[in-house]
């Protein structure tokens, strides 16, 4: 198999696993479909936006939880935001973690929140890694003159 073929197979296998393991969901496929000639870098653009937003939110969350007096409403707002952006990109596990996080916020459960923060951070870095790999594979395929297979 030539290099393009190999890359494409790698890409398909990797993608499929991401969906199977719940890292990404259908929303990500929607985003890929939105990309077209008039917006050729759409996916890269939104993924970058997601990374930026998430870093900020995670920092804010960490800061908020370290306050003397913890403002759970504020934390809830951040988590809500995070949930929104992760669901917009299709980062499924991150989103689910946000849902759990919000429950702890509503209960004003500081411990629960701290743990959730760690978990959500963990999930975020995982999916970040996966997305970077995926996009890199895409780039490589294109660089070698191939087309990126569509995952239905």
């Amino acid at each position, binding site marked *: 198999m030539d290099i393009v073929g190999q890359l494409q197979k790698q890409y398909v296998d990797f993608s499929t696993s991401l969906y199977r393991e719940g890292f990404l969901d259908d929303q990500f496929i929607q985003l890929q479909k939105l990309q*077209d000639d*008039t*917006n050729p870098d759409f996916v890269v653009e939104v993924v970058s936006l997601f990374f930026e*937003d998430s870093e900020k939110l995670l920092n804010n969350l960490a800061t908020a939880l370290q306050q003397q007096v913890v403002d759970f409403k504020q934390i809830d707002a951040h988590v809500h935001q995070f949930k929104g952006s992760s669901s917009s990109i299709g980062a499924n596990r991150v989103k689910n973690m946000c849902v759990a996080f919000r429950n702890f916020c509503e209960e004003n459960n500081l411990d629960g929140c701290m743990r959730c923060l760690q978990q959500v951070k963990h999930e975020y870095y995982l999916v970040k890694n996966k997305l970077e790999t995926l996009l890199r594979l895409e780039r490589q395929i294109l660089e070698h003159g191939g087309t990126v297979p569509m995952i239905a």
Partner: protein
Amino acid sequence: MENKDTPPDILASMIRSFVGAFQVAAVPIILREPSFDLTKWRPPDANFVKLNFDCAIFSEPPGTGFGVIAGDFEGHVLGWLRGRFDFESLAETREGFRTPMECTSSGKSEVAAVPEMFPAGLRVLVVDDDVLCLRVVEQMLRKCMYRVTSCTKATIALNLLRERKGCFDIVLSDVHMPDMNGFKLLELVGLEMDLPVIMMSADGRTNLVMRGIRHGACDYLIKPIRDEELKNIWQHVVRKRCNASKEHDHSSSMEDHDRQKGAIDDAEYASSVNEGTDDVLKTHKKRRDSNDEDDTELENDDSSMAKKPRVVWSVELHQQFVGAVNQLGIDKAVPKRILELMNVPGLTRENVASHLQKFRLYLKRLSGVAHQQGGFPPYCGPVEQNPELASLGRFDIQALAASGQLPPQTFAALHAELLSRPAGNLVFPAIDQPTLLHTSLQGSKSIPVDRNMPYSQPLTKCPSSITNQISQPIMSKGVETNNNMLISFIQQQQQRRHYQQEQQQKPSIVLEPSRSLNVQPSCLVVPSQSSANFQAGNSPVSVNQNSSLRNSMMDYNNSPLQSNNPSERKPACMLSDFAPAGSVSSVSSRPRNVQDNAFQRVPTSPSTFSAVMQVPNMHRMQGSYNGKGTLIPSRFAVDEYELSMDNASQVKIFAENNVNKVKQEPNMDFMENIRVGIEYGNTFPQMI
């Protein structure tokens, strides 16, 4: 002529010689064919095509430029014309001035395209502080062939909506935003612009969704949003328009409108507490004011679930409402008294209460904003603004405000986005012109069309922009002397106006603007009926009396017009302090008040003039009129009618002035003969 079969060339002709009145920057202008016999005018037949006309007047040395754009209901430009008139050649008469206007260029576009493309081209405004989500939704909407404008701040979105009324079909907004609660934005949009609003949120809890619906959202989408959901949003636009046009057909149709809100507003009203307990009241207040989800809200909903007929606040209705409020005084206006004054069968106190609530919020919001900016409540109520602002006619302020508070670049971009029509040498100063009287209209420069004629913007224009404008002269730099004169004139007018207002009932300028713009001129023109005529095309205007223009002018002039201004010969666009004062009310039914109000303002100084305008019908206006009674329409519609009408070959601009001189009217060859019908069955005064 069939509705659908307007050949483009006929259309172009009609545009070129439309007979109508419009007011720009408080300069009423009448365009009319010289041979047009006002006494013989009759309303058009049933089949006619409705157009929207946007007009603008601007400085174009050595004279004044004038432009008209005709568009369809969707906002697509169908044709345009541009002309110029020269004040030096004004002919003064006892009733006013006339001046020929030469048409310098015109154009037309294909009429066809739009309807077939629908819903493609739907103009969507998306508001979300989450940039990622905004980008995704934007892209999805683009894929649906919609025209998308996105912004991250609710305040910017509101400004956009106000500045560019009629430029958006639907709004999508996130619920949780830092600068403004999404529900609040929803209410404001509903109140001011009557656009369908769809809420979006990652939070899909039932009580939040319920809140959204109660605040008036057409739909509530839960993130992540799928493109199939977005594909269907056009139905909300169509539905709203269908309801709006139904509203036209039945002039006081009563359908259920926010009955729930009405009931709740009612409770919040001190005057009576239908809902009962204080707890309920408090909960309602909480619902309104706070962001918190409140489970008790659901209970309250259940309690007031009874179906009631919906009230649609048509333009006429709202006018009556505002008239009543003005009569009582905004502070003393209670629903019961308002209801009595309005005397509309079938209208309940709850309806009025709910509407009053919204109206007050609207006023508060406007004055609140104005306050920060310098205290100009655009609303035509008691004049409580700072003197400088007050001195400008109410809607002058609006005009100014409208005319460009945003930097040109922003609007250029927006315009490019929103107006894909060949504007050609469009005259409009457009929003990005700092003043209406912009001097830079060159032939080659394509001024983006601002569908909302800036000056004709109703008072709802962003108050903040007003303050920016207030300090600027109305005229562009090239016309400084005019400005000074203008300002001083305005200041004079203010007192006069103040006085006048106290004497009269003012339904509210607020109401009028688009209407008023349309209306007022007509008021001016038409001897007695003025008001009636303005009603948008739906009601056959009955020609009431046909007093001579002279009489009307007398009335007009009777309002304290003192020629205090030093006489300067420079023509200026004057600020007319039109106080529509209830003049524009429903056509046939209430001819009262009309007259006096109609002829309100007139520049006193000989050097200033106003062209009296006959108002084009308000059809479109009604369409875009926010049923909730805010002034909105950015354009006035004119019902064109059969081209078979006269072919006078000229259109004259009539200027009105206190000075009574008589002069010849030159014949102008600038416009075509075809007359666009104005749908009010009145005869126009004989201007000369």
